[in-house]
């Protein structure tokens, strides 16, 4: 029984970390992988999704609807931001880092000024379940399911829909796509919007488990970056294995040495991966399979 307990415990922790990394990084990965833009306002899109979700849930909107609305709201903001700012910076990736940092400053402080320093959250739904003498939050299992669904959904979207194919074509050969009559500007806008919406979804999904403050996005951002870098430029090939490896490293280190080493382990992994595999996991996987 004790063996089952600790085995299941490990598995649960792994799944929990896996879900967090997938959900946190999806939006950043789409924007970085598809457009080469490092979005430092990623955390603020997450905060936007969380705030909208929590506000709606507290006036009685069912949580799934509220989460969806949070994602849509963040996506909508994303489309506007792309049109006003990001669009002018595609050829200047370093400048887009600065611009998104500026957006992040404005968003965090703006929310603090207009909505106050904190907001009442929504409670975690669904209660808990007793497995082998330990209690586990059922909502955490929902998050794991959502992570797997998210990976599958993104795969289907980008490989089996017209939008996905055109989007990938646009990103790989913009001039060619343009010549073929694709409205490349709109594709970029939609892709950025999708990335922002995924960030909003992350905020919505985690809103019931976290403290609602304007800086809440910051707790996601380091982990998101780590995952994207380890995954490499092609997120569809690299993200899932990257998340699996990182979740394994983090779970292991946290379980045996505590939270600090879980954190440091992640960051050291990034540095090592970049040194050994400059193209990230996806670059390495593609290099060996071609």
């Amino acid at each position, binding site marked *: 029984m004790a063996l089952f*307990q600790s085995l299941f*415990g490990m598995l*649960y*922790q792994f799944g*929990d*970390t896996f879900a*967090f990394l997938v959900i946190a990084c999806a939006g950043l990965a789409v924007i970085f992988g598809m457009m080469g833009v490092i979005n430092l306002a990623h955390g603020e899109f997450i905060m936007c999704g969380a705030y909208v979700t929590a506000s709606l849930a507290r006036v009685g909107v069912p949580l799934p609807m509220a989460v969806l609305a949070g994602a849509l709201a963040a996506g909508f903001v994303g489309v506007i931001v792309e049109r006003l700012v990001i669009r002018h910076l595609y050829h200047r990736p370093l400048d887009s880092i600065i611009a998104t940092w500026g957006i992040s400053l404005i968003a965090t*402080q703006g929310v*603090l*000024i207009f909505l*106050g*320093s*904190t*907001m*009442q*959250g*929504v*409670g*975690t739904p*669904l*209660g*808990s379940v007793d497995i082998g003498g*330990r*209690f*586990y*939050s059922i*909502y*955490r299992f929902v998050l794991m399911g959502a992570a797997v669904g998210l990976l599958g959904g993104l795969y289907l979207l980008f490989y089996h829909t017209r939008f996905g194919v055109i989007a990938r074509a646009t990103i790989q050969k913009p001039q060619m796509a343009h010549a073929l009559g694709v409205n490349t500007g709109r594709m970029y806008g939609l892709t950025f919007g999708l990335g922002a919406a995924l960030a909003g979804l992350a905020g919505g999904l985690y809103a*019931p*488990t*976290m*403290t*609602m*403050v304007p*800086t*809440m996005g*910051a*707790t996601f951002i380091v982990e998101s970056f780590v995952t994207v870098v380890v995954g490499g430029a092609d997120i569809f090939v690299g993200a899932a294995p990257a998340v699996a490896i990182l979740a394994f490293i983090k*779970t292991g280190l*946290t*379980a045996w040495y*505590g*939270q*600090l080493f*879980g*954190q440091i382990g992640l960051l050291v992994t990034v540095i090592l991966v970049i040194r050994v595999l400059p193209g990230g996991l996806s670059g390495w996987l593609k290099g060996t399979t071609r």
Partner: protein
Amino acid sequence: MTDRHSSLFAKGLMAGAAMALALACPAFAQDGPIKIGVLEDQSGDFAAATMVKVHAIQLAAKEINDAGGIDGRPVELVVYDTQSDNRRFQEFMRRVLQSDKVDAVFAGFSSASREAYRPIVNQFDGLAFYNNQYEGGVCDSNMIVTGAVPEQQFSTLIPWMMEEYGPNVYTIAADYNFGQISAEWVRQIVEENGGNMVGEEFIPLGVSQFGQTIQNIQAADADFVVTLIVGAAQASYYEQAAAANVGLPMASSVNVGQGYEHKRFNPPSLANMYVTTNYIEEIDTPASKAFVEKFHGMFPDETYINQEAANSYIAMYLYKQMVERAGSTDHDAIRAVIAEGDVCFEGPSGNTCLDPQSQHMSHTIYLAKVGDDHSITFPKVWEDIKPYWLGEAGCDLTKSDPSAQYTPSSPPPAQ
């Protein structure tokens, strides 16, 4: 929303230059105003807990001015927003002392910010009030600490919890000075009372996911959990622990009283939480009720009046008393008053007195219990709990001023 805007606008006006409303009363003595610098975080990470401190100081200043000022001189506040950034504390501490030439400074939320400005206060021989509960140990004659310290909060809380729930204790603490030192106090007091530490875990600042920690706690068979976690991200623990049905009583010296988590989180995630604090707005005494009423009279949409707000308010009146007794704002004269050992104030939190050896305060410590619906009850109140550790360890500011911070593991050098 419009209310909020207008009060923000008013704050903006006040923060910039001298406070107009403080100057509104005309009949003051010749000496000119007594200037008090206010360096608090009105934006950034800590704003949630510190905006109210600024309001408390403004409230006290208004009351004092309405009643004729300090020794007939009006109080003038010089307020800067330090943005939760240690560097701003350094810049603005220098500014208030050197350029604005204030007579005293009320400054700082995090211990890091206090340590950032302390060398500057020492260099210019300023007088700074630190109005937070903190890890304790600052022995510096330029500092007056009005917040509670671990020995006051844990020597009351831990034995009570052990008697009520059992001897097995699990501590989770933020992995920095406050958490480490507080955890050390908990450990020591648990052992002194014949209890048993079944687990102790330190959480890096900024961590928001507690899956592993919750599992460890469930596995440890603790009777109660001491939560010494800090910051918005770490506060996510409560929601996650409730969702996983940890179901253990909790004890803390920092949550509720400072970040009013019981107001922000949905019930019952903080149910069965016990906190020792020297003040929270639910305290049911006439003095406290009057204080809350006055506060809301001036700041109608104040979210929560926490212990730091009360401490800041008390500190203003303490300073008033010291200046009036000393007959000047001169620091040596003020220290002479402190050395008399009877600087006390009967305020919203009950009677508090300033200890001349450490320049920390004795407090009435309230044990607050969070109910299932997040309402607060007070199962126990201890009166006149003294900040004994520094004095016992050998800090005596009436004799010498080491300007250092000590910890139980590195106490003052033996005389």
